[in-house]
């Protein structure tokens, strides 16, 4: 599937695999348990052609794809190449991501007592956020229902059946306050992005989409991250806050300029919290925004127009790459049924991953 996505991206860009001068491949499966000897991303060259291209494997938690795109953009910016590729793919078994505590630098006791479970972290971060900022479970169901609805209009989505808010709230509890249909699920997928020097772009297309910035940050002391045996009482902002601020500053764009955004909705509450962490709204504003339909495709700030992780699942290496694909379609006006009206010009992407990585990007026409 990674090779298929790469071939489609090459074809869309009007270049050959032999034109790629630097490649970054994101896949987490090779370092996860119960993945049956999954191949490293660079084995793709066996399918695509042994051109000798420098190819770097990227594994950066759920921020793997965002990291691969940032690296592919940096390779061009540094002058190392004119055309680069970022590709991501993964295939995961059913159920939550299993990981040994050692992978997170923690002693075995932590996993033995059942704490190496990412969904617990999402639920606990959200529980505190709801307490501090007055978000209700009803709003979580509205976010999930929106993403399923958007996914139903996306031929590439994995879950294409819309669910009502009632069905979402009534689905089995996974980690309070989050029910089964408020969560994304690990699955299979692939996506690829071809980048070139901005002054070359019009050679390949009359509708280029520009990567204005692609920034990556890791956690600072005091943040609340997945897989944390303990936390500081003096909480500091998430790495997503830092990555988003850097991405906006580097792009010379403000959050208020964003016309369409794809955010990491590992679960419905993550979309809400990431809205504030990226600066797209203030803490606590989400309840009114969602009730007013502002994050719908027809709203003021459409979010996860392709259905997000909730409808597309999370093939880790591909997940953030899918965000670039969707923003590109939206900025080109090629998103079909789910096209954001009035010709969006500024797009934004954001991923968050273990053990505390945020990656954000600003794209424009």
């Amino acid at each position: 599937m990674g090779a298929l996505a790469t071939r489609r991206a090459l074809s869309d860009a009007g270049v050959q695999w032999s034109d790629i001068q630097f490649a970054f491949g994101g896949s987490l499966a090779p370092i996860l348990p119960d993945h049956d000897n999954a191949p490293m991303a660079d084995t793709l060259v066996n399918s695509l052609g042994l051109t000798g291209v420098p190819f770097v494997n990227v594994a950066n938690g759920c921020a793997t794809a965002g990291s691969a795109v940032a690296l592919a953009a940096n390779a061009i910016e540094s002058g190392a190449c004119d055309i680069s590729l970022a590709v991501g793919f993964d295939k995961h078994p059913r159920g939550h991501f299993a990981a040994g505590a050692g992978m997170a630098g923690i002693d075995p006791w932590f996993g033995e007592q059942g704490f190496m479970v990412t969904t617990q972290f999402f639920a606990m971060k959200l529980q505190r956020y709801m307490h501090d900022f007055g978000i209700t479970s009803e709003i979580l169901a509205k976010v999930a229902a929106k993403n399923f609805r958007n996914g139903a209009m996306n031929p590439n989505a994995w879950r294409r059946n819309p669910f009502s808010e009632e069905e979402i709230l009534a689905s089995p509890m996974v980690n309070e306050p989050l029910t089964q249909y408020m969560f994304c699920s690990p699955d299979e997928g692939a996506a690829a992005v071809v980048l070139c020097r901005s002054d070359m772009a019009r050679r390949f297309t009359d509708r280029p989409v520009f990567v204005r910035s692609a920034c990556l940050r890791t956690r600072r002391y005091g943040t609340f991250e997945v897989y944390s045996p303990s936390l500081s009482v003096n909480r500091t902002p998430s790495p997503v806050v830092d990555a988003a601020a850097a991405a906006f500053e580097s792009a010379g764009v403000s959050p208020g300029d964003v016309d369409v955004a794809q955010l990491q909705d590992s679960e419905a509450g993550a979309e809400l919290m990431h809205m504030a962490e990226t600066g797209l709204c203030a803490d606590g504003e989400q309840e009114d925004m969602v009730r007013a339909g502002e994050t719908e495709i027809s709203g003021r700030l459409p979010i996860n127009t392709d259905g997000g992780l909730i409808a597309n699942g999370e093939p880790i290496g591909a997940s953030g790459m899918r965000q670039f694909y969707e923003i590109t379609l939206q900025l080109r006006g090629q998103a079909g049924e789910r096209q954001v009206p009035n010709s969006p010009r500024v797009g934004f992407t954001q991923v968050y991953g273990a053990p505390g990585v945020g990656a954000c990007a600003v794209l424009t026409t």
Partner: protein
Amino acid sequence: MEPRSLSRIGTVWTWTTQDFRPKLPYRGEGTDADFEPFVLGYVELDDEVRVESRLLVDRHDIHIGMRVELAIVPLYENDAGEEVVTFAFAATN
């Protein structure tokens, strides 16, 4: 670094429930079929640190700000037949 004793009493800073049996490396007793959901969260100890822990509190009673106290509970039996225990927090009386 040096060891430091923390308070045995704290307050719940956040919490959730674990409603399905975690995959390996979880070593709690039982199987998927007879898994007993548990409550967990972060307990703030004397404004010093927040510690992730099991919470021996009913899901209908648990809330942020609740006072809890250290407890030691069995987790599993190791290959040598010894009981392995872990820390948890229970509601204060």
